[in-house]
C-alpha cells in the first residue's frame, strides 16, 4: 500500500541557511534548523545524538530568548511576532509545556497578512482552552474576520470556531453562521466551512443554535452545484435531522435525487469528485447515511427512485472492476456497504435484503481480509431481519470455517458474533458444538464472551435439558476460568426449576467430578447439585452417599474459601438426605481445621452446622434443609452480562468525554456506570443456603449470594434526567383522558391505558422500542417526592431489562390515593441503546381528578351546596384566556373527561357549565362543585371551584384551567 516514499530525510532541510535566519525560508524550517544547528536533539530524529537533558536545556534557552523578545522594550513587528509564536507552537508540539505567548498569538489575529493570521489562529486552536480570559479578544478578532468579506480570512475564522467549538463561541456566533451559510453571495468554500462550523456548535451547544428560516434553505444545499458544498451540508443536515426529523423531512427526496444522479453518472461526469473511477464515493456514503435517519420514503415515486439507486449499486458490485487498484474497490465497496446498511435499516424490501445477503456471501470468501471482516459484521445485522434470516443461515459453513481459520482475531470474533446471530432452533446444536470446540483454542481476549454466548444459546434453544446440562459442564471443563458466576448460577437455577433434568444433572456432575483435576466451578456446581439432588443417584452403589461425600470432600482442601463454604452447606444437606453419613460429616465438621478455621465464615458454618445436626430433630432438619424452592422465572442474567460486555462495559475516559456531548434523549446527564472491573458482584461467599451472617436460622429464603436475584449489572448511579421537553403539554392532555401516547421520540414510545374506580386505579404503561436494536438495562422507575409518597401509593413490578427491537413491553402500576395530592409522580426510564445511555423522564399523569366520581344533582341542590361551601378557603377562582377554540361540545366532553358530572340546566345562564363530583381518597371523600363561565367576546373563561378542602379546590382549579 506504500505510495509514498519516505526516504529523503535530507531533502527537507537542503537549502536552509546555516545559522542566520533567512527570510525567504519558511519560518518553521528556520525554527527547526535554528534549534538543530545549536545541537539540540529532537527525540528520534535521525541526527539526534544528544540526550534528553540537552534537548530540554536547549529548549529552555530558546524559550528564555522568546520570552525576552516578547517582554523587550522594542515592539515586535508582525513578522517577528509570527516567527516567535510559531517557534512556541513547534516547541509545544514537540511535547513541552508552553505558558506564555497567548497574547502575542491573539495580536496576530488582527494582522492583515495571511501567514501571521494563520499562525495566530493555529496557536489559538491548539493551545487556548475555552475558558481562557482571552476568549473575548479572540471572539472579537473572529467577528472582524467573519465580517471581512475576505473568503480566506472568513475561512480561517470559521475553522477556528469549528476547532475550538466552545460554548462561548457558540454564544457569540451561533446566530451569525447560519446567515453566512445561506447568504447568496457567500463563496462555496466558505459555505463548506460554515456548514461544518455550525455542525460543531450544534453538537456542543444545541440549545444555542435556533432552528429558523435558514433550515429550509440549508436543505436545498443538497441541490447545490458544488459537490463540496453538498458534502459538507449533508453532514450538517444529517445531524440536524436526527434531532428534528420533521423539520428536515424534505431532505429525503432531495437526497434521493442527488444520490440517483451520482450513481447513474458516467465515471467521468463528476470530474474532480470521481475517485479511482468511482463517482463521489464519500458523498454517496453521506447521503445514504442521511436516508438512514428516516423510514422508507412514503411517496411511491421517491421510493421507486431510491430502490433503483440501491439496485444500481448492487448491480455495479457485480460488474468487472474498472481498475485493479485497491482504492477503486474500496471506494466502490464503501458505497455498497452503506447501501446495504440502508437496506437493512428499511427492512422492508425482501428482494433487496436477499440480494444484499448474497453479495455479502461473496465477500465472505474474498481474498481481502477487510472485506471478509465487513461482510461478517454486516451479515450480523442482516441475520436479525425476518426476510433475510434464512438466507444468512445458508452461509453457516463458511462462517464456521472463518471461526477456525481466520488469522486476525477480530475477524474470528465477528464470525462468532455472526454464528450467535444466525443461531436458531434448527442449527443450535451445530453452532454450540462449533463454538465449544473453538473455545479450546480461542484467544484469551474473547473466551469469556464465547462462554456467555454458548451458555445463552444452550439455554435458549434447549429442547432437551440434558443437552443443556452437558453443554454447560463442557463449558466449565474447557474454559472454567472464564465461566463467570452468572453462568454457573444459571445452570443451578435451571436444574432446580426443572425436575425432569435433576436426576440427569446429579449423575452428570457426579461423573464429571471423578476427573482427577476438575475446575473449581465444577466443584461448586457439583456441590450444590449433589446437595440438592444427590439422593436421586444414591441408589446406584457406584454413587452411594458415602462415595458422593468422599468425592466432594477430596476436592475440599484445594478449593477457595467461598467454595469450601458452599461445600459445608452441601454437607449439612447430606446430613438431611443421607442419615447414614451423618456421623462422618459430623467428624469432618468437628475437626480443628473446620471448627478453628481462621476464616470466620467457615468457622461459623462449621459450628452452626455441627450444632444443628446434633440437636435438631429429623423433622426440623428436614424442614430447615428442605430442597430449594423453584426460583422465580426471570431473564437470564447471563444475557445481561453479555449485553453489558458487548455494550459499553468498558467504560473509559473516552466514553466519559463522549458522553458529555452525546445525545441523551432529553439532555439528561448520564450517571457514571460502574466500570467493568468495578462492577460490584455479590460477595462470593457462595452462601447458597441463605445462611449468610445471620445465625442461626438456616431456613427458607433463596440464596442471598445468588447474583441471579440481584441485577448486579445495573448501573449503580441513577441520576434522573430532567423532564423531557413537551412533557408538561403531554401531561396536560391526559388530565381529561386516560389513554394515549404519553411520550415519543426517535427511539421510544410510551403509551398509557388507565382505569380508576373510587380511590383506586390501575395504569398500563406500554414501552415500545421503535428501533431495530435491543434496549438493554431497560429500567423504568417511578419517582415520588416524599410529600407525594405519603398521599399516593404506587405499586409496580420491574419490567424485563431487555426490550427487543420493534417490541413492546407492558408495565402495570397499581395506584391508591391515600389523601389528596398536588404533584405528579415522575416516570424515569433509563436504558442503553447501541453504545449510548438513554435517560428520559416524563411526568406520569396521575392527577387528583382521576379519583372523581360524578354526582348528578338538581339545580336546587347544587346551589344549596354551593352556598354551603362559601368560606374563602373553600373557593378558588381563576380567570384565564382561552387557549383553544371555545367550542361548547368540546368543553362538555372535557368536563366529563375531567371526571365530574356535567349538570345540564342547572345554571341560569345556559352558556355556563357546572359540574359536581366526589373525590375519593382512602382517608376521606371530598365533595366538589365547579362552574365554568365562558366569555366568547373576550375569549376568556372564569373557572370557580368549591370543595370542602382548600388544597383540593386549588389543585382541581389548576388542572382544569389548563384544559381550555
Amino acid at each position, binding site marked *: *500500500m506504500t505510495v*509514498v*516514499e519516505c526516504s529523503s*530525510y535530507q531533502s*527537507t*532541510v537542503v537549502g536552509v541557511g546555516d545559522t542566520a535566519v533567512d527570510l525567504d525560508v*519558511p519560518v*518553521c524550517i528556520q525554527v*527547526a534548523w535554528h534549534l538543530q544547528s545549536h545541537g539540540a536533539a529532537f527525540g528520534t530524529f535521525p541526527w539526534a545524538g544528544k540526550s534528553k537533558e540537552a534537548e530540554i536545556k536547549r529548549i529552555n534557552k530558546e524559550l528564555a530568548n522568546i520570552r525576552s523578545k516578547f517582554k523587550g522594550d522594542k515592539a515586535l513587528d508582525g513578522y517577528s511576532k509570527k516567527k516567535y509564536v510559531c517557534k512556541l507552537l513547534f516547541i509545544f508540539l514537540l511535547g513541552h509545556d508552553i505558558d506564555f505567548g497567548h497574547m502575542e498569538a491573539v495580536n496576530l489575529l488582527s494582522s492583515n497578512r495571511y*501567514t501571521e493570521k494563520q499562525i495566530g489562529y493555529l496557536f489559538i*486552536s491548539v493551545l487556548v482552552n475555552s475558558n481562557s480570559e482571552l476568549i473575548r479578544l479572540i471572539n472579537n478578532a473572529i467577528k472582524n474576520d467573519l465580517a471581512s468579506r475576505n473568503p*480566506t480570512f472568513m475561512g480561517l475564522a470559521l475553522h477556528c470556531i469549528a476547532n475550538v467549538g466552545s460554548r462561548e463561541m457558540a454564544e457569540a456566533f451561533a446566530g451569525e453562521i447560519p446567515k453566512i451559510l445561506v447568504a447568496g453571495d457567500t463563496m462555496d468554500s466558505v459555505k*463548506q466551512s460554515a456548514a*461544518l462550523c455550525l*455542525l460543531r456548535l450544534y*453538537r456542543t451547544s444545541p440549545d444555542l443554535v435556533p432552528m429558523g428560516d435558514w433550515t429550509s434553505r440549508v436543505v436545498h444545499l443538497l441541490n447545490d452545484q458544488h*459537490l*463540496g458544498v453538498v*458534502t*459538507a451540508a449533508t453532514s450538517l443536515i*444529517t445531524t440536524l435531522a436526527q434531532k428534528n426529523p420533521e423539520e428536515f423531512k424534505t431532505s429525503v427526496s432531495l437526497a434521493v435525487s442527488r444520490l440517483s444522479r451520482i450513481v447513474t453518472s458516467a465515471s467521468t461526469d463528476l470530474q*474532480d469528485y470521481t475517485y479511482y473511477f468511482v463517482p463521489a*464515493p464519500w*458523498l454517496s*456514503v*453521506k447521503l445514504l*447515511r442521511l436516508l*438512514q*435517519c*428516516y423510514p422508507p420514503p412514503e411517496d411511491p415515486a421517491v421510493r421507486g427512485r431510491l430502490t433503483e439507486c440501491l439496485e444500481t449499486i448492487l448491480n455495479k458490485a457485480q460488474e468487472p472492476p474498472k481498475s485493479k487498484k485497491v482504492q477503486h474497490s*474500496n*471506494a466502490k465497496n*464503501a458505497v455498497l456497504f*452503506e447501501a446495504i446498511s440502508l437496506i437493512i*435499516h*428499511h*427492512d422492508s424490501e425482501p428482494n433487496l435484503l436477499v440480494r444484499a445477503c448474497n453479495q455479502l456471501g461473496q465477500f465472505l470468501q474474498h481474498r481481502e*481480509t*477487510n472485506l471478509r*471482516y*465487513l461482510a461478517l459484521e454486516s451479515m450480523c445485522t442482516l441475520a436479525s431481519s425476518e426476510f433475510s434470516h434464512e438466507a444468512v443461515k445458508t452461509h453457516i459453513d463458511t462462517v464456521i470455517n472463518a471461526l477456525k481459520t481466520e*488469522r486476525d482475531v477480530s475477524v474470528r470474533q465477528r464470525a462468532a458474533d455472526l454464528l450467535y446471530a444466525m443461531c436458531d432452533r434448527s442449527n443450535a446444536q451445530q453452532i454450540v458444538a462449533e463454538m465449544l470446540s473453538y473455545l479450546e483454542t480461542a484467544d484469551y481476549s474473547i473466551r469469556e464472551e464465547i462462554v456467555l454466548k454458548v451458555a445463552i444459546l444452550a439455554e435458549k434453544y434447549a429442547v432437551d435439558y440434558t443437552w443443556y446440562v452437558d453443554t454447560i459442564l463442557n463449558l466449565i471443563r474447557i474454559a472454567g476460568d472464564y465461566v463467570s458466576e452468572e453462568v454457573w448460577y444459571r445452570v443451578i437455577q435451571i436444574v432446580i426449576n426443572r425436575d425432569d433434568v435433576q436426576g440427569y444433572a446429579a449423575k452428570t456432575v457426579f461423573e464429571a467430578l471423578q476427573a482427577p483435576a476438575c475446575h473449581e466451578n465444577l466443584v461448586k456446581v457439583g456441590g450444590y447439585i449433589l446437595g440438592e439432588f444427590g439422593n436421586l443417584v444414591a441408589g446406584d452403589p457406584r454413587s452411594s452417599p458415602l462415595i458422593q461425600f468422599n468425592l466432594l470432600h477430596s476436592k475440599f482442601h484445594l478449593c477457595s474459601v467461598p467454595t469450601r463454604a458452599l461445600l459445608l452447606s452441601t454437607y449439612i444437606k447430606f446430613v438431611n438426605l443421607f442419615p447414614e453419613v451423618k456421623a462422618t460429616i459430623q467428624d469432618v465438621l468437628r475437626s480443628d481445621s473446620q471448627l478453628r478455621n481462621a476464616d470466620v465464615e467457615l468457622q461459623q458454618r462449621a459450628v452452626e452446622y455441627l450444632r444443628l445436626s446434633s440437636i435438631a430433630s429429623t423433622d426440623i432438619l428436614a424442614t430447615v434443609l428442605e430442597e430449594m424452592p423453584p426460583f422465580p422465572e426471570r431473564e437470564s442474567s447471563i444475557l445481561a452480562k453479555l449485553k453489558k460486555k458487548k455494550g459499553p462495559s*468498558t467504560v473509559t*475516559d*473516552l*466514553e466519559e468525554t463522549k458522553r*458529555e456531548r452525546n445525545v441523551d434523549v432529553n439532555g439528561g446527564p448520564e450517571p457514571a456506570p460502574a466500570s467493568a472491573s468495578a462492577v460490584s458482584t455479590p460477595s462470593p461467599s457462595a452462601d447458597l443456603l441463605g445462611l449468610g451472617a445471620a445465625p442461626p436460622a438456616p431456613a427458607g429464603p433463596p440464596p442471598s449470594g445468588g447474583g441471579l436475584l440481584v441485577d448486579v449489572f445495573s448501573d449503580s448511579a441513577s441520576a434522573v434526567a430532567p423532564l423531557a421537553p413537551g412533557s408538561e403539554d403531554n401531561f396536560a392532555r391526559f388530565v381529561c383522558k386516560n389513554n394515549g401516547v404519553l411520550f415519543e421520540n*426517535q427511539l421510544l414510545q410510551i403509551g398509557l391505558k388507565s382505569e380508576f374506580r373510587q380511590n383506586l386505579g390501575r395504569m398500563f404503561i*406500554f414501552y*415500545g422500542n*421503535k*428501533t431495530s436494536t435491543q434496549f438493554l438495562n431497560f429500567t423504568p422507575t417511578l419517582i415520588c417526592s416524599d410529600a407525594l409518597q405519603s398521599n399516593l401509593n404506587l405499586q409496580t413490578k420491574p419490567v424485563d431489562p431487555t426490550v427487543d427491537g*420493534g*417490541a*413492546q*413491553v407492558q*408495565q402495570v402500576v397499581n395506584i391508591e390515593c391515600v389523601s389528596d395530592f398536588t404533584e405528579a409522580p415522575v416516570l424515569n426510564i433509563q436504558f442503553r*441503546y*447501541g453504545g*449510548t445511555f438513554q435517560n428520559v423522564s416524563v411526568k406520569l399523569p396521575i392527577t387528583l381528578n382521576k379519583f372523581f366520581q360524578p354526582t348528578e344533582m338538581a339545580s336546587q341542590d347544587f346551589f344549596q351546596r354551593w352556598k354551603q361551601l362559601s368560606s374563602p378557603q373553600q373557593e378558588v377562582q381563576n380567570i384565564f384566556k382561552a387557549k383553544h377554540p371555545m367550542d361548547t361540545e368540546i368543553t362538555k366532553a372535557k368536563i366529563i373527561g375531567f371526571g365530574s358530572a356535567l349538570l345540564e340546566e342547572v345554571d341560569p345562564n345556559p352558556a355556563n357549565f357546572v359540574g359536581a363530583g366526589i373525590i375519593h381518597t382512602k382517608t376521606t371523600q371530598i365533595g366538589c362543585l365547579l362552574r365554568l363561565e365562558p366569555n366568547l367576546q373576550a375569549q376568556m373563561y372564569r373557572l370557580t371551584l368549591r370543595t370542602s378542602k382548600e388544597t383540593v379546590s386549588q389543585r382541581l382549579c389548576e388542572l382544569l384551567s389548563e384544559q381550555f
Partner: protein
Amino acid sequence: MVTGARPRWGRAEGVPLHMAEIRFILIQNRAGKTRLAKWYMQFDDDEKQKLIEEVHAVVTVRDAKHTNFVEFRNFKIIYRRYAGLYFCICVDVNDNNLAYLEAIHNFVEVLNEYFHNVCELDLVFNFYKVYTVVDEMFLAGEIRETSQTKVLKQLLMLQSLE
C-alpha cells in the same frame, strides 16, 4: 410482563444515534512519535497522551494480513500504514470503515502532491501547513472536501499569500 406484537410503527424508524464523526486523527511513526494529532473532542493533555500511546500499541502489532480496522475502547480505529508512518482515524463503531480508509488515502495523496513526495520530516517542519491541509479536508470531525483538485488549488492559493 407481556411482550406484545410489533408495534404499528414497524422497525423502520429506528435511527442510529451517532452518525459519522471523527474523534481524532493521528499520524505516528513506528517508534510512536506523533507527527500530527488533530482532536475533534475535548480531551485533557494526560488523556491525549494516553490515547496516543494506546493507539500506537494496538496499531503497530498488526500486520498486512490483518484488517485495517481495530476496535478501540468504544470506538474503532481505521488506519493505514505508509512506509514508517501510521495514519489513524478514530470513529464511531457504526461508521463506514472503507470510506474512512479511503479518506486517509485521499489525504495522503494530497500531502504527497503538495509536498512533492512527502516524507516524515515534511510533516514535522511544515506542521502549520499540514494543519491547513487537514482543515481543508476534514472539519468538525466530518469530511469537508474530497476533491484533490479543489484542495490543492486552494492550498496553492494560500501559499501564494505567504
